[in-house]
């Protein structure tokens, strides 16, 4: 698992690669906090290269979304595919976090 941070016109994009499970979810949380820092205006998590996530990783996504929400920082997800997308939908996360089909749509929405 690896989190890469990129900046696009004031929007922070965190690209997550690999697998997030109970054995590395703490590391996932730490890497996300490092990527987001304290000054991001809006955050997009690009999950196009995320191969697997279980409830341990979903818990981290929810925690991070809540923390950013309290700071009035918008967060959205993009590029979910296959079983990863199903897992987010079954969890009801599509109702609490905006999910976009691709990064372009996510950046356009975040920039508004």
């Amino acid at each position, binding site marked *: 698992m690896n989190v890469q941070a990129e900046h696009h016109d004031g929007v922070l994009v965190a690209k997550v690669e690999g697998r997030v*499970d109970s*054995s590395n979810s703490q590391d996932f949380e730490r890497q996300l906090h490092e990527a987001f820092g304290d000054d991001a205006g809006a955050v997009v998590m690009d999950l196009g290269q995320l191969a697997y996530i*279980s409830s341990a990783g979903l*818990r981290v996504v*929810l925690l991070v979304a809540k923390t950013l929400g309290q700071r009035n920082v918008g967060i959205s997800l993009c590029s979910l595919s296959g079983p990863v997308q199903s897992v987010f939908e079954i*969890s*009801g996360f599509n*109702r609490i976090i905006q999910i976009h089909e691709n990064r372009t749509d996510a950046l356009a929405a975040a920039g508004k």
Partner: protein
Amino acid sequence: MSASLTLRVPNRIEAFAGVTEAVETLGREEDWAPDVAYAVVLALEELATNVVRHGGSEEGASEIEIEVVSTDTEARVEVRDGGKPFDPFHDAPEPDTEAVLEDRKIGGLGVHLVRVLMDEASYRREGGRNHVTMVKRRS
């Protein structure tokens, strides 16, 4: 084709990486569709994690037995442990997947995912052990 796999691992979260690898190898050999492999690996992780957290014995002090049987029609998974009686499908709280972000509780999702992703899930207490059996159909 039919193949099976039995693993005994210590009740430690770190022990789980080897289980994932072994099950994914079996899935590749048995030509499972991606959603079947994902569901089986996730079901095993969620249930084994539950045993580690709620089984009542110190981490690393007991063993979890995992059995996976793959046939042409289904992947069948059983997780057995000697911890205190715990039926994850009745004793675990149901998450509120309709809640808004501010009200959404952290956690409680694992068993919910297993219930939805697997086609069958059942629990029995037998011989002083918990047995959780789950089935994912392949078509």
